[in-house]
């Protein structure tokens, strides 16, 4: 290696040092403990049965996990029902939004000519579709449809915007070497748009969770974390409702972490900007 490149080598994709990683974990544990402590104190100060302390949530969790709920469904059945719906709806969203976003990005006239049809749908919240979805669909289809609506637009819009980021020079590199349209799509357009697609997917996943819970609260089904929460809310059993809330938060968090992990693997080529 030449001497002039020492500085370049220093910029290589070294992960954050291990010591710093442990410190971050420690900080997160500490803030979690503090948050739980404040919760415990607040609960004791209020002293109401409707404001349970953290330990009561743990009890409720153990009860739900080992013995199931009042209707005989286990906690895992409820969780899996929600996860399955999100995955199917979200998957459909990706499958439709990415190709459509690429197509409309590559042929701006197509988008310009159909905007009046597409864009207004973006402003109808998925929740506003629930009444229609209840009439038209049942079971998994209903939820997949609603979540699809929630996930589609963030992914579609960011894909569309991403296509505009393709550098003309990169396209030209392909063309002068004799590449066809398909090569340019696969090797230039998609790698350029990929970060935007992933960002759209993370936003879309958030919307998907938002939608599933609302849809499940609306009723008509017997499983799902939203359903379980409504059941317990009617019984005024607050700790069990909170178990459902925390699980939704946790599952959403984990799914987002998976996406982040994929991003980190996929985009090792990107430079990190820090202030």
């Amino acid at each position, binding site marked *: *290696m030449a001497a002039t490149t020492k500085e*370049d080598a220093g910029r290589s994709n070294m992960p954050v040092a291990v010591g710093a990683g442990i410190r971050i974990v420690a900080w997160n544990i500490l803030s979690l403990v503090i948050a739980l402590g404040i919760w415990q104190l607040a609960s004791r100060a209020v002293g109401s049965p409707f404001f349970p302390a953290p330990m009561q949530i743990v009890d409720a969790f153990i009860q739900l996990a080992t013995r199931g709920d009042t209707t005989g469904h286990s906690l895992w059945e409820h969780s899996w029902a929600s996860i399955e719906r999100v995955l199917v709806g979200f998957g459909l969203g990706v499958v439709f939004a990415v190709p459509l976003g690429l197509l409309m990005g590559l042929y701006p006239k197509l988008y310009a000519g159909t905007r009046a049809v597409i864009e207004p749908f973006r402003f109808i919240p998925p929740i506003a579709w629930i009444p229609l979805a209840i009439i038209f669909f049942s079971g998994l289809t209903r939820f997949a449809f609603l979540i699809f609506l929630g996930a589609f637009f963030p992914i579609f819009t960011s894909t569309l915007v991403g296509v505009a980021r393709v550098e003309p020079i990169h396209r030209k*590199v*392909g063309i002068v*070497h004799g*590449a066809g349209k398909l090569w340019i799509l696969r*090797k230039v357009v998609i*790698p350029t748009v990929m970060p935007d697609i992933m960002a759209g997917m993370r936003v879309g996943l958030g919307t998907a969770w938002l939608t599933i819970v609302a849809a499940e609260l609306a009723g008509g089904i017997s499983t799902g974390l939203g359903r379980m929460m409504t059941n317990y809310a009617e019984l005024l059993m607050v700790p069990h409702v909170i178990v459902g809330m925390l699980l939704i938060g946790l599952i959403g968090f984990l799914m987002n972490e998976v996406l982040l992990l994929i991003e980190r693997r996929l985009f090792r*080529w990107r430079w990190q900007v820090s202030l």
Partner: protein
Amino acid sequence: MHAPISLAKVDVDASHRYGPLLVHDGLKFSVAANEFICICGPSGCGKTTLLDMLAGILVPSSGHVLIDGTQANPKEHSISFVFQEPSTFPWLTVSENVATGLNIKGAPADQVRSKVANIIDIVGLKGFEDYYPHQISGGMKQRVAIARAFATEADLILMDEPFVSLDQPTREHMQREVLDIWRHMKRTVIFVTHNLEEAVYLADRVIILSAKPARIVAELPISLQHPRDPLSVEFTEIRSKCVQWLHAAH
């Protein structure tokens, strides 16, 4: 190596209009196979447009650009291009970037690997194969682009002011390297620059264009032996002649 004796004789006889603007007014010249040509001209004289026509990605509004007797076409002719601006793909490593042209041409994997390793060695990027462009300097990125162009062993290599963004020592180093690669591989090179010293240093023949609408002002064969000494009497004489022509061209 399946490469036949490379040919790539280029014949240009073209005019080009961009809307109401006449860019090229009856440019007519030929480039022999394996010749190293430098094209110079005042800025804005349509040098990049000319290269696009030579690459077959722009069709002249009248006349023709022929490579070995047929209309220039990047899908049929073996052409490579080094651009003025940074053109490496940020999502590919150095060696993947260098392999791009070969992969487009559908070269078999083992051939790609050996050719890429060879050219990376020649341009002095050994040890940086797995780096991403953002991890290396601007000069190194341009070397990646040059390696990519030469890796395909294209018959015709077009270079659009490839060293403009480099500092003087790197530029001189790269000029020597390009001459070296060219002597090894014997390709037809058409090199556009506005730096006359660079042109006289590199070329078998210098073509000087006028300002828009571009015409050929002068063609000057240079028979000095390589490596050329920019401080020698012959070199400075040729250079000052070129400077006079270029001034006349304005």
